[in-house]
């Protein structure tokens, strides 16, 4: 009897130990990290940098695969097909949430598991240095005085930057269509068009304009964040100028995976990512690229994504961009 008890107990212990060992073993083979962008851009380079640091923390290789095309369609199709075992993960940005509501309606925020948010990037309102617009009030006044006289450059309609402008306009009590929104193929192209004087204002990011500001070619008239940006100490926030825009609306970068990943795997990945973001190498890169560290774990990130999705849906509806 006693012997049987002991053997059962031993077996139970062994089983528990075994399963614990199995769980502790993740990851035991390479994890593919699928991106929605072609090689060479800012998102790609940050992901590659992160992958090299994660390789050290997790002890397995993280091959980065670029699946550009269709604003994330190619990447998401691969993620959707993959097993939710933690060996396939993907990059995500705010643009994805926009696409779920626009071109990639076959997916929504629930189609994927949200693993970790990495960084945020606030939106800026920039003009060329010789522009008459010196403050947000100048911009609002100019638009009210002569609707259509102010041309604003940004990424496609329905993108994060476009909604950022809508949020600002609402905070300023300005009908947003009094400003002409001109969609460019990238935010960088929009900045170039302001530099060339083809558009008067652009909605941009810190990294794209900080050198032009330092060289005296451009001026930032508003920052959509709670605090001033360290790289641009002279640029006032919108709140300082009396416009209460929702500053939680920022461009985000994060990591997602196929739906149904075990919680322990997600936690392990999120922990490793959190550690990676703290390494001096990553910190320096994030600082150099004027990004704001904004880590969120799986649960909080999923909630955040849902909240952004609700906001996106509201804006799509009110701008009748919904299809």
């Amino acid at each position, binding site marked *: 009897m006693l012997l049987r008890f002991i053997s059962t107990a031993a077996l139970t212990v062994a089983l528990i130990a075994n399963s614990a060992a199995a769980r502790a073993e993740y990851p035991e083979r390479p994890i593919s990290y699928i991106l929605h962008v*072609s*090689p*060479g*851009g*800012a998102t*790609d*380079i940050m992901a*590659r*940098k992160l992958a*090299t640091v994660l390789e050290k923390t997790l002890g397995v290789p993280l091959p*980065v*695969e*670029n*699946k*550009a*095309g*269709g*604003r994330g*369609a*190619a990447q998401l*199709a691969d993620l959707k097909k993959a097993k939710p075992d933690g060996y396939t993960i993907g990059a995500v940005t705010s643009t994805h949430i926009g696409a779920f509501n*626009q*071109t990639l309606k076959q997916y929504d925020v629930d189609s994927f598991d949200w693993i970790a948010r990495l960084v945020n990037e606030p939106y800026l309102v920039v003009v060329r240095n010789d522009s008459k617009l010196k403050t947000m009030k100048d911009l609002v006044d100019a638009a009210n005085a002569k609707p*259509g006289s102010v*041309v604003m450059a940004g990424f*496609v*309609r*329905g993108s994060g930057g476009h909604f950022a402008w809508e949020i600002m306009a609402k905070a300023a009590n300005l009908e947003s269509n009094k400003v*002409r*929104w*001109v*969609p*460019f*193929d990238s935010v*960088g192209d929009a900045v*170039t*068009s302001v*530099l*060339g*004087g*083809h*558009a008067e204002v652009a909605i941009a990011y810190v990294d794209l304009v*900080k*050198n*032009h500001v*330092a*060289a005296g*070619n451009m001026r930032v008239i508003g920052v959509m964040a709670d605090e001033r940006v360290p790289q641009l100490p002279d640029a006032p926030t919108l709140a300082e100028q009396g416009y209460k825009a929702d500053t939680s609306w920022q461009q985000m970068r994060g990591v997602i995976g196929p739906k149904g990943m075990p919680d322990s795997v997600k936690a392990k990945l999120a922990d490793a990512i959190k550690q990676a973001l703290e390494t001096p190498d990553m910190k*320096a*890169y994030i600082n*150099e*690229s004027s990004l704001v560290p904004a880590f969120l774990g799986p649960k909080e990130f999923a909630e955040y994504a849902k909240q952004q999705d609700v906001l996106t849906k509201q804006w799509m509806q009110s701008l009748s*961009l919904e*299809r």
Partner: protein
Amino acid sequence: MLEGFTAGLAAFSSWQVIAGLFAGVVVGYLVGALPGLSAGVGMALLIPFTFGLDPVVSVVMLIAVYMASEYSGAIPAILVNTPGEPSAAITALDGYPMRKRGEAGHALTLSILGSAFGSVLSTILLIFSVSWMTKFALAFGPAEYFALAVLGLSLISTLSGSSIIRGFVALLFGLLLTTIGTDPVDGLPRFVFDDGFLSGVPFVSALIGLFALSEVLRMLETTDEPTTPMRDIPGVNGQLGLMKPHMGNMVRSTFIGYIVGVIPGAGATIASIVAYTVQKRLSKDPDSFGSGNPEGVVAAETSNNACMPGALAPMLALGIPGKASTAVLIGALAIHGVAPGPLIFTQHPEIPYSIYISLLVGMPFMVLLGLYGTRLWVRLTQIPRGVIAAIVCAVCLLGTFSESKDIFSIWVAVGFGIIGYGLSKVHIEPAPIILALVLGYMMESNFRRALVMSGDEMTVFVSHPISAICLAISLIVFVLPLIQTVRRRRRTAVKAAAYPGKAA
């Protein structure tokens, strides 16, 4: 400027920089010669290797890859009618007919020496004009880009060989294809039947299908045909001598390439086609363009390599990536905390100057590799056609796959191969289709953007000077050949009326 050069030269004293330069040239030759693997992708693949390197070493290596791959796209274009880089499609127009005549060595020699000349002269232009050129680069807004695209498309008349009507059919077919994909203004999917078409018809697949795979199908018609006899290649001195008659052509093409290169987003394909057109107009023998005129090879290759230093001007001085390859360079520098843009010449002068030096120092190495390599590569023409067809087919399909990592793109390439083969049976050339695919999106998106900007005011296209000039030139380019044709017809008609007996 002198201080900058000293800083750049000081950076060159380490053996790692020299090793990076040589490694870059060799990798660039491979990347450029493999269809589907474009300069931008090849450079991006090297980025992870540059994490641990010094910023100067990594930028020198990437520049060498960029430089060599812009040239080596001509090698498969001449040998097997398969442009390794999109701009080499224009090189193939005359390069491939030359190879069919057994003059592959001759064509390859002209292409490497033309490229080298274009690259070096254009680098010198870059060093002296980088800061002025930024104004020119920024002058291009939506209206100007639209007009530039129209100008590019109007050059179609030079590409369409004997029949202008057939050229138009091909051009319009290409423009029709560019309507597939995501709408540039509202982000709406148009004529997208498969997710693979969301960002438009995959360009590399179309290029490979229309040129390489359709050529493979043609080869299969006559697999047992004996290989073309090969003409002897002169010694290296003799090879250099081949360039003598082309000096004027090379200088002109370099200036065209450099100026087009400065315009962000315009690119080597437009440069090649403009230089090709200009040369054809000035040539004593314009009718032989398209059937193996060496001047065509020289013009296309000189200008597409001259384009590359041009593209570096807005990248260095403004931080604007004009195309995929310069975007990768910006990314590679960002890793090391160096941001190209208005401050680079004061904060990191060693970066632009080491780029200049590597362009100049790397060139002789690239030329030697090219001149001696020519002897090796021409042997490819002695392999039986059936074998060549199989190899080309395999390399091309692998190339399309590696570009997108999507099996769908292979089917697109095969589809275009069949279309291209069918079109060749009715004597429709693929070059105008490629031109339309390159310029169609640029034309449409900027047309609509310009109208959104102006509030649907059509006059923007004529009130902006650059746009007005481009549109006027394209009108002239477009109408002139039509008038000439009509006149020629009338003259023959008059002759026929005078001698009714001889009319046929």
